[in-house]
Each structure stands twice: as C-alpha cells, then as structure tokens.
C-alpha cells in the first residue's frame, strides 16, 4: 500500500515537473541572457562613457536594445529601420533586437511591460502611443535638448506630441501624414484644368470638366465617407463644433450640418463620384491607378498604396479640401498624424535608445524612409520630399490647425458605426440631406 502511495506521488510530481519544465523552458535559456543583462547593467555606464571610442572602432558592446515594432519585417518601413539598426550596431557595437509585432503592438505592449518584459522602445501611431501608453514612456526633454532634436521636428507634430504627452516630449514622431485631395495631374491636363479648386463651387466645376472628359472625377472607399463629410462640415463650422454636434446629437439645430450633407449628396447625385463609390477598401482608391477616376480625399499614404496595388506610375497632384462660403476653416486646417517612437521609462539604456532613434527619425534614414514608402520626411532638415507627395509640401508647411482623424466623427465608439452607416446611405442616395440629419438626430 505504501508503495502504491509512493508511486502515485512520484507520478504526480513527475507530471508536474514535466509540465512546468515544458512551460518554463525559456527560463533556463533566458538565464544567460538575464545574466548578460545584469553584467551589461554594470558595464552600462562605462559603455556610455566610452561610446565615442567604440564608435571609432566599431567594437561589440554588452548593451543590447530590444525594440517592439509596429511593422512586419516585409514592409518598407521595416527594411529601413533594420538597415538603420545594422548601421548603428556597426558603429557602436550595440545590437538591436527587433521583434516585428505588426499593428497589434498597441494591444500587446501594455500587458508586456506590466509583466516585466524587457523592452527598450516601441512604436505605434503617435497619438495612441502617447494617450494610451504615455505612463510607460520616458520624458525625452533633456536628451532632446542635448541633441538639438526639437529643431528637426516638424513644428505641428512637435506641438501635437507635447499636447498628447501631457505637456512634455515623450515621443519621437516619424513618417508624418497629412490629408487632402490627391489627383492624377495627367487627367487634369486632359480635361483642360489648369488651376486646383479653392472653393467647393470651384471643385464642382472641376468635377464637371473631368466628367466631360470621360473619367470619374472622384472616388472613395467606404471608410472614406467620414472624411468627406467631416471635412465639408468642418470647413463650415470648425472641428470643435463638429465634435460638439456629434456628442450632443444636435444635428437638427446646426443648419451647416444639413448643408454639408446636401453638398456631399450633390457630389454623388451629379455623377461626380465613381458609380462604384463608396467601394470596399481598396477597390475605390485603386480606380485611380486603373485610370478610371481622378481624385480622392485621403491621407498621404494613398498615392504609394495605389501605385503599389495597381502598378501605376501616376504623376500625383495635391490640393487641400476646398473652403466653403461663410465657412470658418480653409486650407490651413487639415488632419495631421504620424507614427511615433517611445522609449520605455524602465529601460536601462534610454540614452542609447534615443541615440539610435535619432538616426532613424532624422537625417539619412528619415530621408530613406520617405523615399522608400513615399512619405513625408519627419526631419525639417530633409527638405526634399518624395515626388509622389511633394504636391502637399507648400500646404503642409502653412498648416496651423490640426484636425483629428475624420475631423472627430470617429471619436465616439458608441456612435461612429451609426455615423458611417448613415453616411453610406447618404452617398448611396438612399437618404437625402434632410434624411441624413433626421437619422443622425436620433442618436441620443
């Protein structure tokens, strides 16, 4: 009997051991790494002091940085960052361990950091980075001042980053984007259009000329309808009033809301939008690449996406969404955003991380990033914009007012699906302007 009990206990213990062993295998393999980490902590200050010597010699360092990336390894941005990391390692001996997490990094990073995962820096949309993960991030003010970094950041991005960061600099923005109307210059020329429209009435004239020339003047994806209506309404009443109207469901008491809906209805009713619009992503935008449509209101990543999706080599032009009669906003107001790197406050190698990231968001690699994915350079010293997005440069530099994404129409997760659904009905001509306002007014 005793033997049986002993056998049972032995079986239980060995099963537990196997299970724990299976789950805990990484602990044993991690042990040398953590020891190395401890050693590196001790060597950190020496390494930091001796950086210049290492730079000269390209010696290996005990320091290793871990980066959780919002990109996947095959994306253009990832290739540039990897190249910058390799160059940084060759120069300083500091290896950067990159984990390509993809866009879900925004949901993974918080639990990982809370669980004590050793991450030195990560990136995601700079607004999400700062508003959702700001508590994990280091204040970069001193390091930025020492490196003169702020002079290199686009003023509007720097201002936004500080606002989102609670008044201090906690992010290094890169790959900024703006929004506006992107168009095929060749189609404008073929239609005899020499000037870009500045008012909504001029936009209608341009649309008519393009339609007469045999192309669809505009197109949009189904996710672009909030941008269309958001921009039009914000041109009348400004973003703050748009958000106020949305939050209070006060649509019936804002005449401009109906006017903006009528304007968008007109675009579709007069046949100024593609018969397929709003199309499922990315079919709508691809119509420009296929030579069927001319203009689209979207962000500055759109030209590159269309070129890549369709193999087109379009000569892209840009103009801001036009102003409206008696409106409060004009071309000085636009959606601006970007990605952002944040350095984890708990990191033992904040300075090294900052030094590396400085090489990514400024100078040669920022320029390479812009060229590779046809994006706007983040560094003000990089004055040459990729040709694809260069049309937006003069407007971008004169911009003084920032809109949120879809001018705030997607801010409220309880309403955004209703807003989008009603806008789809408006653009499918199932609702007219008044019908849209009535439908929106029920969203209490």
């Amino acid at each position, binding site marked *: 009997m005793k033997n*049986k*009990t002993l056998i*049972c*206990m032995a*079986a*239980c213990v060995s*099963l*537990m051991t196997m*299970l724990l062993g299976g789950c805990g295998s990484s602990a044993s393999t991690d042990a040398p790494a953590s020891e190395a980490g401890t050693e590196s902590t001790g060597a950190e200050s020496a390494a930091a002091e001796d950086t210049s010597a290492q730079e000269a010699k390209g010696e290996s360092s005990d320091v290793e940085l871990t980066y959780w990336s919002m990109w996947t390894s095959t994306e253009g941005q990832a290739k540039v960052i990897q190249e910058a990391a390799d160059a940084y390692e060759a120069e300083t001996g500091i290896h950067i361990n990159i984990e390509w997490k993809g866009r879900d990094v*925004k*949901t993974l990073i*918080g*639990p990982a950091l*809370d669980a004590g995962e050793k991450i030195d820096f990560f990136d995601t949309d700079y*607004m*999400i980075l700062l*508003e*959702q993960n700001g508590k994990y991030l280091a204040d970069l003010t001193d390091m930025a001042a020492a490196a003169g970094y702020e002079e290199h950041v686009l003023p509007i991005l720097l201002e936004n980053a500080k606002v989102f960061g609670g008044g201090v600099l906690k992010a290094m923005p890169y790959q900024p984007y703006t929004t506006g109307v992107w168009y095929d210059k060749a189609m404008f020329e073929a239609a005899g259009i020499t000037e870009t429209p500045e008012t909504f009435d001029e936009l209608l004239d341009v649309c008519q000329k393009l339609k007469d020339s045999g192309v669809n003047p505009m197109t949009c994806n*189904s*996710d672009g309808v*909030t941008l269309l209506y958001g921009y039009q309404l914000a041109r009348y009443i400004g973003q703050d009033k748009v958000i106020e109207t949305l939050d209070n469901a006060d649509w019936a008491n804002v005449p401009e809301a109906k006017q903006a809906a009528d304007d968008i209805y007109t675009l579709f009713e007069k046949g100024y939008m593609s*018969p*397929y619009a*709003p*199309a*499922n*992503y990315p*079919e709508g935008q691809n119509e420009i690449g296929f030579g069927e449509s001319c203009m689209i209101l979207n962000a500055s990543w759109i030209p590159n996406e269309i070129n890549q999706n369709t193999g087109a080599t379009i000569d892209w032009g840009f103009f801001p969404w036009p102003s409206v009669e008696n409106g409060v906003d004009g071309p000085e107001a636009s959606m601006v955003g970007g990605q952002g790197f944040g350095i984890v406050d708990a990191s033992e190698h904040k300075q090294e991380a900052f030094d590396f990231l400085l090489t990514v968001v400024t100078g040669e690699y920022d320029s390479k990033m812009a060229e590779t994915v046809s994006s706007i350079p983040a560094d003000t010293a990089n004055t040459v914009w990729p040709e694809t997005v260069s049309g937006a440069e003069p407007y971008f530099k004169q911009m003084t007012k920032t809109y*949120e*994404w*879809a001018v*705030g*129409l*997607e*801010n*409220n*997760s*309880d*309403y*955004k*699906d*209703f807003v*989008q*659904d009603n806008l*789809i*009905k408006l653009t*499918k001509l*199932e609702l007219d302007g008044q019908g849209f306002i009535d439908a929106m007014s029920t*969203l209490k």
Partner: protein
Amino acid sequence: MKKNKKMIICFLTPALLFFLLTFLYPICRTVLMSFFSVEAVNDPMDLWEFVGISNFVDLMNTSVFQVAMINMLKIWLLGGVIVLGIALLFAAILTSGVVGKSVYRAIIYIPNIINAVAMSTMWINYVYNKRFGLLHTFFEKIGAHELAMTDYMNGEIKFYSLLAAFCFGSVGYFMLIFMSGIEQIPQDIFESATIDGANKIRQFKSITLPLLKGVFKTCVTFWTVSVVGFFVWSQMWSAPLSSELSTITPFVYMYNVTFGTVGSTQRDGGLGAAVGVIMALVVMLVFGIMNKLIKNDDLEL
C-alpha cells in the same frame, strides 16, 4: 472494475492546477472587472473603481451594442438553420451508401481547414468583387447588368454576403458530427424498416432524426459558441475599419471599447469585461435550454 481513486487524483491534479491557473484566474478577474471602471485590462487592481452593475446597464442602453446583439442573433438563427440544415442533409446523403463518400466528405470539409482570413479574402475578392468577382462575371454573362453592379460589400446586403460566406465555411464541420451520429445508429434498425416497407425519407424522419437528438444538442451548443465568438469574419468584412454597423458583433464591440479604435484612443476594460460576461451567460443559457428541451438518453442503442 475497481477504480483507483488515488491514481485518478494524482493524474488529474496537474491538469486541474493548470486549468485553475490559466483559465479560472482570468475568468474570475474578468467577472470581477465587469463591476469596475478600468481603463486598460492590465491596470493593477488599485486603479479599478467600483461601479456596481453600471457597465451592464450602460451596455443595455448602448444602441451599437444592441445592434451587435441583434446581428449575433441573426447569425445564430438564420445561419444555424442554414448550416445545420445543409449539414444534416449532406450527412444523410453521404451515409446512405452514395459512391465516392470519402471524396465528397473531404471536399465539403476543406473550407474548415482554411484560415478564416484566407477564406474571407477569397470571398471578398473573388466572389463579391463588383469588378471581376464570380457573381459579377456570371450576371454580366447572362446579360443581367443591373445585378452585375450589385455592391455586396455595402449597405444592408453586406450582412447577408458575410453570412453566406461564413455558412459556406461552417457546413463541413457539422456535417462530420452528424455523419458520426448517423453511423452510430445500428444498421439492422434501417434493415428492419426497409423490410417493413419504409422508404428512405420515412426512415430519416422516423429513425435518423429521433436518434440524432443528442448530436443535435451538441451541434447547437458548438454553433452557439462559434457565433458568440464571431470576430475575425466581421473584422475582415469591415477592413480596414475596426467595425461597421451592418456586420458588428458583440466581440467586435468588446474589442473596440477595450483597445480603442482608429479614431478614438479611449478604452474601457470594465465595459469590455461586461460584454465578455454577457456572452458567457448567453452560451450557458443556450446550453441550459437545450438540456431542458432535448433529452438524449431516451433511447439506448
């Protein structure tokens, strides 16, 4: 045979401990969290603020959650009738001695081994695409130009295009379960019925269906679990958006409120947990009702 209780305990203990660690703790934490206001799911408990049942009350008063629940109910009911009906029909045909049973079974089951993302991409791009999709091309060929212009990815029809694709991918799994149930019915019962003059349809109605009650209960429970966890298909149908009204389900809404969306960085882990609790209750409710309605021990085979 005498059972050795000590041995059973010893072998079950590790699994039980692991279950407690990896399942019970998150379950308890989620249930608890649903009564608190919590920003991020990983926030420490000292940051939680007790709000009682207000998360549940808020959910009941939130229009988009109501729409999500209605969408889920429509998928469960309409999809359930379609999927279980077709699966049962296929199972009955394939177990009736049809030639090439293995080939048909494999073909019908194939969609189940393909990833939902790949299946969705196939349907969206190669079936529903209004420029070169299968349906567009078919209607163009027969001269139905109006129908060829149908936009399956917008408006009211979007839900049904999603439902059709989801059902297509679900039939094979339930067909296998039904087939296994039918094959367990002793052949001599069917032989006796044949001798007594019952045709195949009569045999199906009077023998197969009554003896499949237990299997049917299992299928409804599995179907409920898969519909309650409906997420990837909905996300694919609204890509690159996080959700759309026509295809939103409670889990998509839960994801939106827990992690924020493209246009909003606001998060509410407590509300997300409340959605999770409600979904768990829905599954338990359906399971309870099925247990009440269908007794599978009426007949011993």
